């Protein structure tokens, strides 16, 4: 359906073996109430300084809007590939939930989970909320000031 999805399928296949030392993490979020179309969102991992590591989840399939989520898109551009799961964009007031694999080495090592969100003809929000990628964050709802109102990571 989409070149990116095809690329995603290939990269997932390539990286699957290295997930042996990984943990399944459930990420669930609640969207803010806003006026406008369904929001695009990107959930990704950075180090403490904000340097992009990898993508966990992209909501929204039309790649022409990815550029708007600037912080994340630049990170993807530096890494040169989009790894992670792609799903649908999420509308106002809706919730979403996705399971991702995160390497054990990234947990409790000072990394962060960040969320960028954008709406067509609307605002663009970067890194809100931001959650420490640590066991201690598990199950806690972190509030954000963008289109994603709250995000919970269950490890």
């Amino acid at each position, binding site marked *: 359906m989409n070149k990116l999805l095809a690329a995603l399928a290939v990269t997932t296949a390539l990286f699957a073996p290295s997930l042996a030392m990984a943990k399944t993490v459930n990420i669930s979020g609640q969207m803010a109430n806003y006026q*406008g*179309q369904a929001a695009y969102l990107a959930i990704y991992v950075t180090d403490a300084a904000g340097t992009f590591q990898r993508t966990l989840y992209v909501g929204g399939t039309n790649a022409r809007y990815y*550029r708007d989520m600037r912080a994340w898109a*630049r990170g993807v551009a530096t890494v040169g590939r989009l790894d992670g799961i792609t799903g649908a964009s999420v509308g106002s007031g809706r919730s979403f939930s996705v399971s991702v694999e995160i390497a054990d080495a990234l947990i409790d090592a000072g990394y962060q989970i960040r969320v960028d969100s954008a709406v067509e003809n609307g605002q663009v929000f970067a890194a809100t909320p931001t959650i420490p990628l640590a066991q201690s964050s598990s199950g806690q709802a972190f509030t954000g000031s963008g289109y994603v109102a709250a995000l919970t990571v269950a490890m």
Partner: protein
Amino acid sequence: MFRSIHAAFALAASVLVCFMAVTGAVLSVNPATETAAAAGGRASVTVADVAAMAASTHGEVERIVQTASGRVIAYTTAADGTAAAYTIDPATGAATGSYNSGGFFSFFAELHRSLFLGDGGRIVAGLAAAALLILSLSGVVILVRRLGGWRHLFGLARGSSRQRLHVNLARLAVVGMMLSAITGLYMSLVTFGFVGDGSIAFLPFPAGVDGGMPTAITNLAALRDTPLAALRELVFPYPGDTGDVFTLTTSAGVGFVDQATGALLDFIPSSLGQRLYEAIYLLHTGEGAWWLGLVLGTAALMVPVMAVSGIAIWWRRRRGQPRLRNNSRAAAADAVILVGTEGNSTWGFAGALHAGLTAAGRKVHTTTMNGLATTYPRAEHVFVLTSTHGDGAAPSTARQFLARLTHWKGGSPRFTVLGFGDRSFPKFSQYAIEVEAALEAKGWVPFEAMTTIDRQSSQAFERWGSGIGKATGTSLELVHAAEQPRTARLVLEGRVDYGAEVQAPTVVLRLVPGAPSRKRIPGRRIEGAIGRFEPGDLVGILPPGTSVPRYYSLASSSADGIVEICVRKQPGGVCSEFLHGLEPGDTVNAFVKRNPDFRPARGRKPIILIGAGTGIAPLVGFIGGNLRHRPMYLYWGGRDPQSDFLYGPTLAEMQRSSRLTRLVTAFSRVVDGRAYVQDRVREDAAVLRTLMSRGAQIMVCGGRDMAAGVRAAVEEVMAPLGIDVGTLKAGGRYLEDIY
């Protein structure tokens, strides 16, 4: 085939296509409102000016966007992290209002794109675009064939009022519909990744960023060099991050601007795919060309009207198909009926012939001409019933007939051709003539020469049937009324007799509804009984004990509250003798048949009415309704002013009240100055030429010979102007109602 495709897609997708058209029409207004809201006159303003102004007025600007319609929007973030968006005046940077991405048009945009059903809805929207495209293309093919070729594409539409509505709207809107459909389909394909849009999802961050102290925005060279008109989007660097850059998107491409040096880093020009996408986006939405948006929106509004009229046409046509009882197999039949029809009217006659032959004990196989077999082993007689389409072409159910005939292996059957048509068209029964010649060339043997039926005349069909019965040795009784109407009972209120002294007994009959009615207004009462009608429409009369109606032109409209007709007594004419025998208080069974092709054109241009004898009926009706005193000229021919001057006093009154501008009469049985109406046309050549050069319309009503004479006279009179009757007819300026 195109007709079935057109019908199938219309039935399957019309609701969806209408939904998309209506939501699209709502959205089409958006570019115009946006453009009106955008401030104008700022050729010299640069991106640097606007960016600096916005930054100094609104604090932390995240980005500035210029819509295709020229509105400039600044997205800002306050210190506490709350976001806001303003439309700004590019000259001052001042906010002209807050900008909200939601709202009315955003709701309709999403409804139009996905019906709020996500990807499933987007697929449905794409299918609607495909359906509209197929409907438009197949419709154009049908229209071109119907009108007799591309040359006639803008010729006068004919047929029932809904058919003309459908055709006229199609000609107005089809280009817009196709544009919307093609561009919509393309955008759907882009959404689902089948076609690229040339966009770059992940722009690589530029190398060689200076990282030094930011310079004031007004001094950044790359921004100063970009006129506001070219701006699409300017994304500001993250505040406090000296390593970050401005991202500048213009109509030419995307690049980065160093906030310290003002240099343009890594400019990526728009790809061809991206330019194509932008052009198609503009063509679909009208964003950037508001007038185009309104044109497309207007075209879209015609879609629901066309859907309703189209389905009504389809339904009527379908109802016109007869159910054939005892239709034998082709191999077993001793009589074969082949039907060529465009609008199904011929089917009714074929059904009557089928029933008549079956009743006479024949085994009958009836099919379309396209269904011609390679042999009919037992056929003794083959009947070919065909109409002629457009400019002498095959009607839709006969389009493959001549091609199929080349594969014929069945020897030399006996056959006859019955052609249906309208004598007032130049290529009357042309296709039937062609078919007869082709069959003879193939070795078929005519057992009866070709006969033509003018305008579905039941009488002519009956006559043909008795001839055929004799020729085939079958006792054949053919009864077919083109349409079995529901009749109303009318009562004769009064009659005026003329013409007995000159062997042309003629009577003007005034009929009123027979059934009691609670309605007080006479017009309402007659509409309740028989429906609405106007002068020039026909009233069908069923004489007692017959099922074949005779038609008479109406001299009145339903608003007059009466049915008024003018009947000449025909020797041996069942209906005219019946009508002539009526006394006030007697009743008749009647119904109205619309005749929408014989009406004065709208407007104030002069009307030239020409007729003879009872042909005056609709003409006097037109004059009677001429309350706005439009110039109307009447040329009428009778026998003797003392005897058959129909409506004489009425016409004089109409001249006094300025409804009739000029009356010219010709009488053929007077001692001095006997003349026919066409003679008066020739004598009045100068007046007629002046009127025609002012755009006048000619309407002729009466017998066939008179009409032919008038046509020749008008042809002569108009020759110096370089106008011929054919051209006038094609433009709807020469109408005939001939009997």
